[in-house]
């Protein structure tokens, strides 16, 4: 098909969700009942369009002139290629399932029309990112994704914590975006365009040092959206939003946008830039995995796990293989969305039927032994967790091994120090298996601890909820991606995204499996201990009583201290220096005026001279009126106006 024919899918893919957003949003609460199904229908149409127009290995671009400024025209460009094609399918598919799930999960909510409107707004922006043909267009939709994420995290606006978490997410993302924008503007300066096609041709014209700087600036955008250290603090807090939102936005799609960005610009990342990216990814991966082993909130465990997996993908890009990162992104999207939806089902099941402030339905210490009450949820959770933990025969195993393999190959070329990367991935994979076993045990095995509240009666979710969960767990099986459960390279996916000679090290799957099994065993042994996972310990409270601005933004000192210092300094400068100076001048003038007026009264005005002086000066002024000096004309005009005004204001 010619490029022009792609105008239709672009306008439909973007237009449909946007129109749905406007209708749901402005349509009012009357749409509460149908918005979910209507939204799902729109998304299903989008899914159909994305599959119908999918044409791998062929690039189609659609361009519009936006404006001409200064020396160059600025275009809005959209592009269809293999990457966007896969992303479109993933985004639409997960969104479709999540919307169906939400219909039941949130059926009691009063503002359901707004919820589905914001989901559509999110889809509009996310599809915009996927289709964007230039970095500028991507940035525009990038920000809009930030907005929809803000609106969805803060959906329960009557509670203070979700709104706070929404704002934290937006601001931390903005820090990354500022760097992203700087990178874009530098590209405009050095190349004159941010169109991916133009960039891929003219990237060589920039010196490597500058290219590294640009690459790292652009990576800033990824750090924000994909929750990389040190901008990662918002992701766990984003769990304050409704659970289906966490599944869609904070597990499967939006957080993957950063990886998508890196895949798009991988050709302009220099070796140095990649090294930094790999290190950031590694730090994020390890921090996320360690934190996930100790938190009690069922969703926070998954959030830290998402952070850790995103770190893994970022690392894969840093090690030069955006394809394996993209592969992991796809498999992760399905099993993590499945985990979140299952977690939602669990929360749904243990939520007290009557309000009980003492009982937190997300705390895993209040769960246990749920596998009997929630058999379907248990199976879905088990499958998805196995995929995440990297057990053989699941999709996560394939993609994780592909990354580890790339890591060893890269280290082989780089030298001995380079082996740190793949080894740390292996260790972190062990941690992953550990915390997933811990979670599985805490939720579904052991004694039933939810009886501390009398209003908890666990029950399986309706079919409209477990249907999407089952589909997502089915997609976490290896067969969908490769027929050989131990080698991703022999599957269709890798060749689809353009890997012609897949690399394979036959000992990696074995080593990875051993690490995973050992970790699971360790976790299993811990579950048999007297106080498994320290479950009986002082309950930490997450609620923060005060809303001090800075403390809210980050729990981390490295962020806080310099920021607080600058803000305090600015306030002081404003109060003590600038205003004080003005005050000084003003007071000084008043004192001077008093001195002058004193002298005026006692010296100038003294005695008879007054009359003479007055008459003479009056004559002088009248004469001056006509002397043609500009200053006097001005003076007369101003005096005239002043008199007019005085007359007016005395009314």
């Amino acid at each position: 098909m010619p490029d022009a024919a792609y105008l239709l899918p672009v306008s439909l893919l973007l237009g449909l969700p946007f129109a749905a957003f406007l209708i749901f949003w402005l349509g009012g609460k009357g749409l509460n009942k149908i918005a979910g199904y209507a939204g799902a229908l729109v998304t299903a149409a989008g899914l159909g369009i994305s599959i119908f127009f999918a044409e791998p290995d062929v690039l189609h671009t659609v361009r519009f002139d936006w404006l001409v400024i200064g020396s160059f025209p600025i275009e809005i460009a959209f592009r269809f290629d293999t990457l966007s094609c896969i992303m479109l399918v993933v985004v639409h598919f997960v969104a479709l399932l999540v919307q169906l799930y939400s219909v039941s999960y949130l059926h009691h909510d009063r503002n359901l029309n707004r919820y589905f409107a914001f989901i559509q707004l999110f889809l509009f922006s996310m599809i915009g990112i996927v289709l964007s043909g230039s970095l500028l267009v991507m940035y525009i939709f990038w920000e809009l994704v930030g907005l929809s994420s803000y609106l969805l995290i803060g959906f329960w606006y009557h509670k203070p914590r979700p709104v706070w978490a929404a704002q934290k997410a937006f601001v931390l993302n903005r820090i990354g975006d500022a760097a992203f924008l700087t990178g874009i503007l530098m590209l405009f300066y050095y190349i004159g365009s941010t169109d991916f096609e133009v960039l891929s041709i003219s990237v060589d014209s920039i010196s490597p040092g500058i290219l590294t700087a640009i690459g790292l600036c652009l990576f800033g955008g990824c750090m924000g959206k994909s929750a990389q250290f040190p901008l990662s603090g918002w992701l766990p807090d984003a769990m304050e939003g409704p659970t289906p939102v966490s599944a869609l936005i904070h597990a499967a799609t939006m957080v993957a946008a950063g990886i998508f960005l890196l895949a798009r610009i991988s050709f302009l990342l220099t070796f140095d830039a990649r090294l930094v990216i790999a290190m950031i990814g590694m730090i994020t991966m390890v921090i996320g995995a360690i934190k996930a082993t100790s938190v009690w909130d069922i969703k926070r465990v998954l959030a830290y796990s998402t952070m850790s997996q995103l770190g893994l993908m970022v690392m894969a890009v840093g090690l030069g293989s955006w394809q394996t990162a993209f592969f992991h992104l796809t498999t992760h999207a399905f099993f993590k969305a499945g985990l979140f939806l299952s977690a939602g089902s669990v929360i749904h099941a243990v939520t007290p039927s009557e309000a009980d402030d003492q009982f937190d339905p997300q705390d895993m210490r209040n769960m246990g032994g749920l596998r009997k009450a929630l058999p379907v949820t248990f199976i879905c959770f088990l499958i998805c967790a196995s995929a995440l933990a990297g057990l053989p025969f699941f999709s996560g195993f394939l993609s994780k091994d592909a990354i580890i393999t790339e890591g060893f190959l890269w280290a082989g070329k780089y030298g001995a120090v380079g082996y740190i990367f793949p080894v740390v991935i292996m260790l972190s994979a062990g941690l992953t298996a550990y915390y997933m076993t811990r979670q599985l045990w805490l939720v579904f095995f052991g004694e039933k601890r939810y009886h501390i509240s009398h209003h908890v009666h666990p029950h399986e979710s309706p079919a409209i909820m477990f249907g999407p969960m089952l589909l997502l767990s089915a997609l976490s099986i290896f067969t969908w991606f490769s027929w050989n459960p131990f080698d991703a390279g022999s599957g269709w996916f890798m060749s689809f995204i353009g890997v012609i000679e897949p690399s394979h090290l036959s000992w990696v799957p074995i080593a990875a499996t051993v690490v995973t099994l050992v970790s699971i065993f360790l976790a299993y042994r811990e579950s048999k201990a007297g106080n498994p996972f320290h479950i009986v310990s002082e309950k930490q409270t997450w609620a923060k009583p005060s809303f001090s601005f800075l403390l809210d933004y980050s729990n981390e000192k490295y962020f806080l201290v310099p920021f607080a210092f600058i803000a305090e300094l600015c306030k002081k400068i404003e109060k003590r220096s600038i205003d004080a100076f003005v005050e000084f001048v003003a007071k000084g003038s008043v004192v001077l005026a008093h001195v002058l007026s004193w002298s005026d009264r006692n010296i100038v005005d003294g005695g008879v001279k007054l009359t003479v002086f007055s008459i003479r000066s009056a004559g002088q002024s009248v004469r001056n009126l006509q002397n043609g000096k500009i200053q006097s004309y001005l003076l007369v005009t101003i005096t005239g106006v002043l008199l007019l005004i005085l007359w007016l204001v005395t009314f």
Partner: protein
Amino acid sequence: MIDHILTLLIAIPLLGALAIAAWPDNRAQNFRMIALVTMILEFLAAVTMYAVFDHSQSGFQLSEAVDWITLPIGSLGVVSIDYALAIDGISFPLILLAVLVLFVGLISSWNIEKRTRGYFSLYLLLSGSVIGCFLAQDFFLFYLFFEFMLLPMYFLIGLWGGPRREYAALKFFIYTFFGSLLILIVMIALYLSAIDPVETARAVGVLGLEDIATKDIIIQLQQWLVEGKIAPEQLVHTFRFAYLADAGNYIPGSILSIVSDFYILDIPVRLLAFWFLFVGFAVKLPVVPVHTWLPDAHVEAPTPISVVLAGILLKIGGYGFIRIVDGFFPVEAEYSTVPLAVLGMISIVYGGFNALGQSDLKKMIAYSSVSHMGFVLLGIAAFTAEGINGAIYQMVSHGVLSAMLFLLAGVVYDRTHDRKIENYRGLIHMMPKYTVLTGIAFFASLGLPGFSGFVGELFTLMGAFQSENMPVWIPALSTLGIVLAAAYFLWTYQRMFFGSFWYKNDNSSHSTTHVLTDLTTRETALLVPLALLALLLGILPGLVFDITGPTVAAWIEGLK
């Protein structure tokens, strides 16, 4: 009519002001109606101007020029002051913005009850002066309007303002008057140093009184000027912008001559004059550190005056930078790129940090204005086509958005006479429409793509990156401004609008919460069009860039 459309634009509000001042009876409703009719006429005149304006042309259009004062003053040559008006792509969008903002301000003045005669006639006087500033093509005329603006503003804040209005009005007056003084000094120096080549040619006798000057004659005359062949008595001094912007018109050996070797304290006089002018306009813009009048003036000013102040008065500072500071001293401007850009950067970041620290809603918005106007300075300092276009766009965008923000702040102040952010919580439960519109205004102001704020920031920053004289770290650090904007707007939004409803009353006269009613029809009718305009400009920035583009391109070409 069409030939004198610009005069009409100035005359309509001034006549309206007179009509109100002279109106026989004392009923407030009459003053309101006269003011409204005046602004509608003004609006129609602006629409006519839009229809007549040729977008593709780069020069001045709709020019009107009349000799106003011509006086021979012996060896000092001849004084010549012209009543000269014209518009081009630089002033045109700002005039449209001015008419819009003044209109909005008038509608929001509807519930002013105190001394209405004075209020509305001063308001119209202010309107005429503001429009005059953008239209004037003669420095003297410009300065006249510039000063005229100051006085009604002083009284509008000082008489109709909040509790500390006198302090704020005086601070405003002293600051801007100080700025004006610096401008006046340079204006006189410029006047003494430059000539009107056409009139001089007539005085010398090479051009007949009725003849139209050709390019050759002017070049010839400028040649004679350089060679010193013209007697001082025959030199016709001028205030006309067009002549002051042409390096050929400066008298050799005069104080601001292009090849001047005058120094004061080892600083070239032209550079000094440049900085004088800069500071004069910097007070208006405002640029840190001469900005502290702004928060006080805004806090004390009544809502409509805040709208006008932020919406259009600040823009005169930016307009002055482009037309006068850069226009007459391009070499110095380019030489001073780095300090100017650093000042812009400081305004952006410093304003942002201060906005973060405010507990008064209006003060927060005022500091956000400082931050946003910093982008204007950054774009102008860049001295590139993108930068200047972006700066003009940013001014238009900020005009629309700040008008909206101050109207929104006025809504809650009208109801409770309390602007403390921490005294409100969960307003969404009482005022859902207000919450949505505030959200739109906040997100538009923090630079969300799709709204005008984003485009303004994008292109001023882009211009700064393109500038050959500006190191990359300046615009790179300025992007911190967009982070801060997100922080202070969203933090305010979170604190005032979300959570469960709660309202603490510092003001005993309004004790009940039922005063917190949602937007009235008049308020909605003011806010929604502004929001739509911000959206329209954000999606189709070409609406502004098509007007400014050709002029700015030619203007930069001419200066370099």
